[in-house]
């Protein structure tokens, strides 16, 4: 540990770093940070920095509001997208109580607990998310009207399209400079929609990385006077922004999901993991899709999952088992397609992992693969095949979550309770608002 700290201090000195941003994440997945100077850094690395948690979403408690941000020295990284003449670095922090014990509201702590559970079963958990997002013109409308895509309905179609691609390219290069390898980046189906696919890492590093990527995407867009958003469904009538997440469990160096004697190359561990994820999907959707707006993405017809099922080559399924090349045992994995880009990655990874592990521990049976395009089945056919739906609204999702022992356990009492309360309040706010839909539909005709 000492050496890591020494490394950080030395680098700050050698590179003339002026400020160090202490990063952490609130329960809703909003990045939070405060800046310290190099002079304060040594102390911060050793003892942490005290701050008042009462104003942070999900951090408030009845008794003690002070908590400590404890830098995780191995996450120390210069931020290449900020000004060169006064280098700024960031370090991701764990949030701990004043006595040094983990703070129960810290999303990193929630994920770490879930990873420890995996480890106690002999597994390490690897994830590779695909992050979708939109670029929109600035200024962003604040009156509740839809934002303006860059490459759509504009006189400068070609040039603005180039602009978005140029920003994305610069974003990918910046991420690579920060040691975040990008597997693939592309323009998505919807106007102004883009996607960045990340190479797998362990889930904790990946959750930190997702937070970093969102930040870099937004920062670099802002440099070009463009707005980037990870809002799940910013435009009606086109695809929303998902965070399809590829996952696998490794037992040492062996892919625990792979079995060449199985017709799908899926091991019993993989089958039970998928079964667990499917069985608990309704309960964990409030976490993977945590906003009112999330449920406008989870509708039929836009490549987003609606029905709880799995399949190999069917993009309407909730869990997809991507085909892998023969002998590529390490790349056998599953893809969970529900999460959206605005989820809290720590909590989302923890929740899906916990559901899968429960399937393994309890030996759940995997139902049959969904054959047809699920969108085309009639309700009666779905009923006959026993295919359930994901929650249709935030309210439904919170109901399912509130009844879930699994979610209470994986989130811990503090986060679970706060989350349910916060989401109920969000739903109540939403419900009380009279929307444009209602004016258009009802005002004159009723």
């Amino acid at each position, binding site marked *: 540990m000492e*050496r*890591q700290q*020494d*490394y*950080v201090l*030395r*680098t700050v000195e*050698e*590179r003339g770093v002026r400020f160090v941003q202490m990063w952490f994440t609130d329960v809703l997945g909003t990045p939070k940070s405060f800046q310290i100077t190099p002079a304060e850094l040594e102390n911060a690395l050793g003892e942490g920095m005290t701050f008042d948690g009462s104003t942070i979403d999900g951090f408030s408690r009845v008794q003690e509001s002070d908590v400590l941000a404890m830098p995780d*020295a*191995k*996450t*120390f*990284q*210069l931020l*290449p997208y900020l000004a060169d003449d006064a280098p700024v670095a960031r370090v991701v922090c764990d949030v701990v109580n004043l006595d040094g014990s983990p703070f129960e509201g810290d999303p990193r702590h929630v994920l770490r607990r879930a990873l420890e559970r995996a*480890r106690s079963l002999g597994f*390490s958990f*690897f994830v590779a998310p695909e992050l979708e997002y939109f670029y929109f013109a600035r200024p962003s409308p604040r009156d509740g009207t839809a934002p303006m895509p860059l490459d759509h309905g504009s006189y400068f179609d070609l040039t603005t399209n180039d602009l978005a691609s140029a920003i994305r390219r610069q974003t990918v290069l910046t*991420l*690579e*400079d*920060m*040691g*975040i*390898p990008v597997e693939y980046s592309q323009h998505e189906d919807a106007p102004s929609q883009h996607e960045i696919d990340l*190479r*797998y*890492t*362990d889930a904790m*590093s990946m959750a930190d990385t997702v937070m970093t990527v969102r930040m870099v995407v937004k920062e670099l867009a802002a440099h070009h006077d463009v707005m980037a958003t990870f809002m799940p469904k910013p435009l009606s009538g086109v695809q929303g922004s998902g965070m399809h997440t590829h996952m696998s469990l*490794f037992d*040492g*160096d062996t892919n625990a999901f792979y079995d060449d004697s199985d017709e799908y190359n899926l091991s019993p561990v993989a089958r039970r993991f998928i079964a667990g994820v499917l069985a608990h999907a309704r309960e964990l959707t409030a976490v993977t899709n945590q906003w009112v707006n999330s449920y406008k993405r989870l509708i039929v017809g836009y490549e987003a999952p609606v029905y709880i099922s799995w399949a190999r080559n069917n993009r309407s399924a909730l869990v997809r088992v991507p085909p892998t090349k023969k002998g590529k045992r390490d790349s056998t994995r599953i893809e969970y397609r529900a999460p959206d880009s605005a989820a809290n990655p720590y909590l989302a990874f923890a929740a899906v992992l916990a559901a899968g592990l429960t399937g393994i521990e309890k030996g759940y049976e995997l139902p049959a693969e969904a054959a047809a395009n699920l969108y085309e089945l009639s309700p009666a056919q779905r009923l006959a095949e026993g295919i359930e739906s994901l929650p249709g609204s935030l309210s439904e999702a919170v109901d399912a979550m509130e009844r879930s022992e699994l979610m209470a356990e994986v989130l811990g009492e503090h986060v679970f309770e706060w989350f349910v309360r916060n989401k109920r309040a969000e739903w109540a706010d939403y419900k009380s608002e009279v929307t444009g839909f209602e004016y258009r539909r009802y005002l004159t005709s009723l």
Partner: protein
Amino acid sequence: MEPLLLFPDPAPPLLAQALDLGGYPWKAASSLQAAERLEPEDGWAGAVVSADADPEGAFALCRALRKRDLPLAPLLLIVTVEQLSALELREDLFDDFCVTGWSGGELDARLAHLFWRTGRGTRPELVEYGPLVLNLETYQAGLSGRPLDLTYMEYELLKFLATHPGKVFTRETLLSRVWGYEYYGGARTVDVHIRRLRAKLGDEAANLISTVRSVGYRFGQSRWGA
């Protein structure tokens, strides 16, 4: 000059006398802990380790000093004639040796030669390979004069690879040598960090680290030029 580290403690009288006469300041230590506690801020100038009385302790200390980030050098080992065979396979633990029965003049000459050869005073210690430069003292890495911003583990991995160019390491070896045993992530962690390093090295230098199929990774050219 900074003092020499002398083992064991108390110092063998003849040795202490010879060093004093040669004008070398020294401090005696009986263990690695003691050596680290007594170490001057700018590090030991070198070490003279006598294996006469306690060969096991002496070799253990040499090994520990050599495993530090900046391996302690020069290191002069003093052994008895009987202990000469014990030097086999321990060649990396010392820079030169004397056989007990040495004269003050011999000790002096060997130390002078060692200091000349290891160029004490010409720190910082740099590892250079093509466009890549690592400064082991300041933990900084640079590529064609441009600084590389590495995380701690990326730096450690690159340092390990760059100080063993041409050699192929399995992921398991890298994991145990760079991460240590407390790490639980498995060998895939190595792949993840190699990818991160390659991303930071950029297109022109990413091939400094090559993947040796179904074996592991190699930094720089193979020894055989393949």
